[in-house]
């Protein structure tokens, strides 16, 4: 019981923010919450948010684990492009769906392994180590697609982008299942705690007997895996692999989702669920701007302003300030005690 209460208190700021953003959109655009069923699937703006937010949500899962180890993975957008290109290449070369998906996922795992080895064995700072693949990755993707948008018409692969399962769009099912599965793995075992301890103090954790090298590689490989799923979804969505634009700048949105989710960039305590809510907040802002009908010149300014408000509200300085106003009596007592001492 107390565990559930603690969990709810942990994700309360994110839930309140999401509710606030959604309320704001529904004021500007009254029909926002209308959901109907069309063509055997749910249809409406809230579903769009869940669906369009899928790539960032998936990236945020891997990114949360990486950031919890005090790392960062800038390469996820480029890895998305690589895996999307591999899946499009595989299906157009006539491989069946299983081998195509396997190749795309393996490509993601290899990219993650590369990042993990650079970080854990060579000790290169994560921001630099993953920058290499961020820059080179799009080139690799372009080599695979030969510079053009590689299109395909295979209905099975397209299903991952625009199909639906239990009336939910397939991308939504994928990110929710992946999110719950990885949360279950890290929280039902000691893995989550070990990741946090490595993030707080790598040296002490290693001395305490944690195999931190393997753990570090594992989180980057997980991040690569999530990026591969996101890449497959992005390619399947537009029925083509666009090496130049797939996942462009999404690494930054993923990092932002983690930050809005309240995980510190200095590593340590993390919450995957809060990051996923963070991803939905970002997508809600994006979709809200599109629905509002403002001229496109305002898009980025509005987004920046809303994000700034969210981060200011969540900032430690404001939180201590709030605590000061909320419990004046306790602080008074504390002050008296220090005076008497």
């Amino acid at each position, binding site marked *: 019981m107390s565990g559930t209460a603690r969990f709810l208190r942990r994700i309360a700021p994110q839930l309140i923010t999401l509710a606030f953003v959604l309320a704001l959109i529904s004021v500007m655009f009254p029909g926002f919450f209308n959901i109907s069923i069309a063509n055997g699937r749910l249809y409406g703006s809230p579903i*769009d948010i869940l669906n369009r937010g899928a790539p960032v949500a998936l990236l945020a899962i891997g990114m949360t684990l990486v950031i919890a180890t005090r790392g960062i993975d800038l390469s996820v957008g480029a890895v998305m492009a690589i895996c999307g290109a591999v899946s499009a290449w595989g299906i157009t070369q006539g491989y069946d769906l299983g081998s195509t998906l396997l190749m795309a996922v393996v490509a993601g795992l290899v990219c993650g392994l590369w990042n993990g080895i650079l970080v854990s064995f060579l000790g290169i700072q994560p921001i630099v180590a993953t920058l290499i693949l961020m820059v080179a990755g799009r080139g690799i993707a372009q080599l695979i697609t030969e*510079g053009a948008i590689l299109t395909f018409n295979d209905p099975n692969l397209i299903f991952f982008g625009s199909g639906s399962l239990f009336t939910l769009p397939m991308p939504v099912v994928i990110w929710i299942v992946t999110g719950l599965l990885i949360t279950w793995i890290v929280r039902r075992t000691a893995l989550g705690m070990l990741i946090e301890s490595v993030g707080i103090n790598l040296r002490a954790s290693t001395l305490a007997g944690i195999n931190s090298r393997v753990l570090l590689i594992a989180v980057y490989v997980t991040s690569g895996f999530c990026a591969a799923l996101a890449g497959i979804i992005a390619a399947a969505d*537009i029925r*083509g692999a666009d090496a130049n*634009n797939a996942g462009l700048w999404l690494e930054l949105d993923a990092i932002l989702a983690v930050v809005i989710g309240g995980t510190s960039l200095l590593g340590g305590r993390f919450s995957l669920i809060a990051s996923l809510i963070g991803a939905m907040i970002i997508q809600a802002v994006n979709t809200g701007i*599109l*629905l509002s009908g403002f001229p496109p*010149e305002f898009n980025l300014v509005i987004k920046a302003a809303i994000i700034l408000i969210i981060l200011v509200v969540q900032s430690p300085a404001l939180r201590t300030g709030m605590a000061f106003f909320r419990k004046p009596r306790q602080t008074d007592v504390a002050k008296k005690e220090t005076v008497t001492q």
Partner: protein
Amino acid sequence: MLSRKAILGASLLASVALMSSSAIAQTIGFSQIGSESGWRAAETTLTKSQAEERGIDLKFADAQQKQENQIKALRSFIAQGVDAILIAPVVATGWDAVLQEAKEAEIPVVLLDRMVDSSDDLYLTAVGSDLVHEGNVAGQWLVDELGGKDCNVVELQGTTGSSPAIDRKNGFEQAINGHDNIKLIRSQTGDFTRTKGKEVMESFLKAEDGGKNICALYAHNDDMAVGAIQAIKEAGLKPGEDILVVSIDAVPDIFQAMAAGEANATVELTPNMAGPAFDALDAYFKDGTKPAKFIQTESKLYTQNDDPQKVYEEKKDLGY
């Protein structure tokens, strides 16, 4: 007697042949920006094939998006003594010195697709398309197609602030200006990409009564239109019938959509900039006619009546 005549005739023929060979360009250097987009790859393919057709020896240099490589390539063309130079400049500024060198070596330079900020006596001519005109052709098609029926149009803009986005928007607005039956109800950027085109179209459909309120879509490029067509289909509407689709660029994939009846019209941004350039050079070398300083390429309108499947087959191997 007979042999003497023959010799005379032969020498006459030879001199004619010599004259004609000096009249047309034999060797032309082409400095291309790189291959950042499918369109540019198609431009390279077409320039090479055009040169081959005309029997021109084309020296090709890929600058990989760097101006310094282009300047190097131009200097080496000048040193080799080519007859003329084609260049697609990667940026607008910084060309004065090298263009001056080409002018002193009496090698005419033709700009392809993009302009430079240098004085226009440093180059022979520039070949390019008029972006405003492209938007105008698209808008005019819609005006003619509707024939006075009321129509709410949504617009997918290119990257905010980019010159194609600004010009194609202005051109379209000029064309529909004065036709009160056509209203531009929503306009958002789709960043010239399929993904964003699809996402933005989804939100347009939600915002306008499930798309019942929208009668036409104007996209600043074909890729966004292709994405939007999928969004329209997923919303249970028929693109091309319930919502008319007109876009710009004429890349192969939009012809497939047109063949399937899902897109209605596209305005071509021709990758054949070299053809008009070679024509201008031919005329210049033949009798010294100086072409106009800007040669505007045709912004050809393609509709479903233009056998889109055939155009697709023609275009798909150009490297788009």
